[in-house]
């Protein structure tokens, strides 16, 4: 399987709101692709459609050339972090990963590996998830995404709730994952979190892609990266 995400002409309407309006882009392996745009640009909806959670009214989304719903052991193909708060408070972090591992035919050994990888090794993961801080939940969500050692990663706002040390750690982790040849798509509403780690940039606004470019190319534009970004999404510097 080629590690790619292909989003082709997605359209989706929620009642009167047009959430996706012809969203199209491709995520290539071997680099971190930043998926940025203001709140409501359609980033999360796009990810949910790619992951088969929402159905698009039009268009297609493929992971490694196949629709997500056709994947057997999907977590071994795509690792996703959508909502780190989605945990059963009475269940420990380790047990949360354990049932996910069981669903993919994996064992407890792999759970220990990803816990160590995400800095949740030791006693933390044996505590109930209800007591976790947002940062710990993000780390647990990342551990879940990495569980199946997938060639494709889709992370929705993974920096939320991380302390400065955690932000630095995550940047390093993402760069390492891309260097291993994985396709890494990271969404954020703050470009600044990603500018030093992303090799490629997909800027979305009002349900469609307004720029699909290398970070270096955009940074070379008048006024630097941040100004170019704000121009793209049609906001002035005060946004």
């Amino acid at each position, binding site marked *: 399987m080629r590690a790619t995400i292909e989003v082709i002409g997605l359209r989706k309407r929620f009642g009167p709101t047009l959430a996706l309006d012809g969203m199209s882009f491709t995520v290539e392996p071997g680099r971190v692709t930043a998926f940025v745009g203001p709140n409501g640009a359609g980033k999360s909806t796009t990810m*949910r459609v790619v*992951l*088969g*959670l*929402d*159905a698009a009214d039009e268009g297609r989304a493929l992971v490694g050339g196949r629709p*997500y*719903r056709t*994947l057997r052991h*999907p*977590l071994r193909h795509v690792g*996703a972090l*959508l*909502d780190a*708060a*989605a*945990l*059963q*408070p*009475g*269940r*420990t972090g380790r*047990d949360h990963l*354990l*049932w*996910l591992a*069981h*669903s*993919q*035919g994996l064992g407890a050994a792999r759970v220990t590996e990803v816990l160590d990888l995400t800095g949740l090794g030791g006693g933390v993961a044996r505590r109930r998830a209800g007591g976790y801080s947002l940062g710990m939940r993000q780390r647990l969500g990342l551990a*879940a995404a990495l569980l199946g050692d997938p060639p494709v990663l889709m992370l929705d706002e993974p920096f939320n709730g991380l302390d400065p040390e955690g932000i630095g750690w995550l940047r390093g982790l993402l760069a390492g994952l891309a260097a291993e040849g994985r396709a890494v798509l990271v969404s954020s509403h703050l470009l600044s979190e990603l500018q030093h780690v992303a090799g490629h940039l997909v800027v979305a606004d009002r349900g469609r892609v307004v720029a699909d470019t290398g970070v270096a190319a955009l940074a070379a534009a008048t006024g630097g990266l941040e100004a170019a970004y704000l121009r793209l999404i049609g906001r002035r510097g005060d946004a």
Partner: protein
Amino acid sequence: MPELLRAEWTKFRTVRGWVLTVVAAALVTMVPGLLFAAGSHSSCSEGPIEVPCPAPLLGPDGETVEDRFSFAHRELTGDGALTVRLTSMTGVITYPPPDHDKIVAGLVPWAKAGIMVKDGTRPGSSYAAVLLTGGHGVRMQYDFAHDTAGRPGGVSPRSPRWLRLTRSGDRLTGYESPDGRHWTEVGTARLSLPDTVRIGMFAASPGDLTVKQSETGGSIGQVRFTQTTAVFDQVSLQGAWAATEVGDSPGQTDWERYHRANGLVRSGGTFTVTGTGDIAPSEDGPTVQDTLPGVPFGLVVVVVAAVLPIAAEYRRGLIRTTLLACPRRGRALAAKAAVIGVVAFAAGLAAAAVTAPIGMSLLRANGFVLPPTPLLTEVRVIAGVGMVFALAAVLALALGALFRRATGAVVTAVALVVLPYMLAVFSPVPDDVSRWLLRLTPAAGLAIQQSVPAYPQVLSHYVPGTGYYPLPPWAGLAVTAGYAALALALAIRSVRRRDA
């Protein structure tokens, strides 16, 4: 699929609250039955002296029976036949409603008179009989539980009924005829009888039962003394006839003492047999079913245990994680249903398997004589608790997936599974309403608990409140299974269609 089942099981067992809810369901199922058994006492006395209660009368198949009638009989060795003409069948019913002030002439529907081959005169011994009833025509009956209908209608001196019973080895065949020339077979029975048996004419009349609905909800049954007198002639066998009141101590009522005693009056070739009692299966004493009154309460907790996990997945957004791990949504929901079904089955089975034997030995220790229940029936009743729990859990899970909310799903599931049973058993609704409630609603599956069969040839108050369900055990369970399957199918359709 095995991976998915394992994942769902891991998911369930790693939340302590959910496991404890299932344990609570088992305990709630156990406690009422054990309290009832521990707190109930039975004693028997002869005059002022307390004596051990007599063992129930058992038929040849080991089931409890009633065997009480007047028998005019003689010996039959080897093969043979008896033919008689029945010219009259009359009777009395003492003090029937509405005024309860008169002894009236009449026959109860299952009054019986006819001819019989019986293994001696000991109550409970094997027999076969061809007989006329008060209201159900000619029947062929044998060994208490078996009943075959012949031609309907009654008897009068102008239109007599001829009856014939033949024995050929272990095969007994009953015939009837309007004229003694043209015979119709009514039925046959294969019985293991000794070479020498008793053959003759008999009469019996079961008590007249009326049931009043009481204002507080229950029902009040009244049974009245009745008596049947049958006149036979053209008796094909000659010889020494004896008369026995099988299973009866004679002359207990004033009617018998001063008006007409039970027994045989012979005048030339005419035999007049008068009798009271019944030859039929009986239900007497508590059975395994009575140790499980906690089942409807356990069901309420099972419903909660099945709804909690699925409702929590929706509330926490975990359903998306589940569907990421298993994008085939039908399978994902089916795996959840399978796991909660098996868990609920285990809880119900464990609760019943502990409660039933302990409850029954408590009842025995407290003086009750429990009629023997076939082992397969006990296994069905005990495993049935597990099966009803499993189906209720699947139904509740499906409602949880449809509603995505705990409260609505629990209320709906309880209203569908438990409420109809409670209304049928504990509320003052008419008997017919309570029967329909347990035919049409998912509560029908509780019929799997019925441990004593209802016999159409025995007049009794067969209502859910006394442990008799309108549907056969497995048919009732099938109704509940149908509801569970329907709800699961709707839930799968809805989960497939909706965005997660």
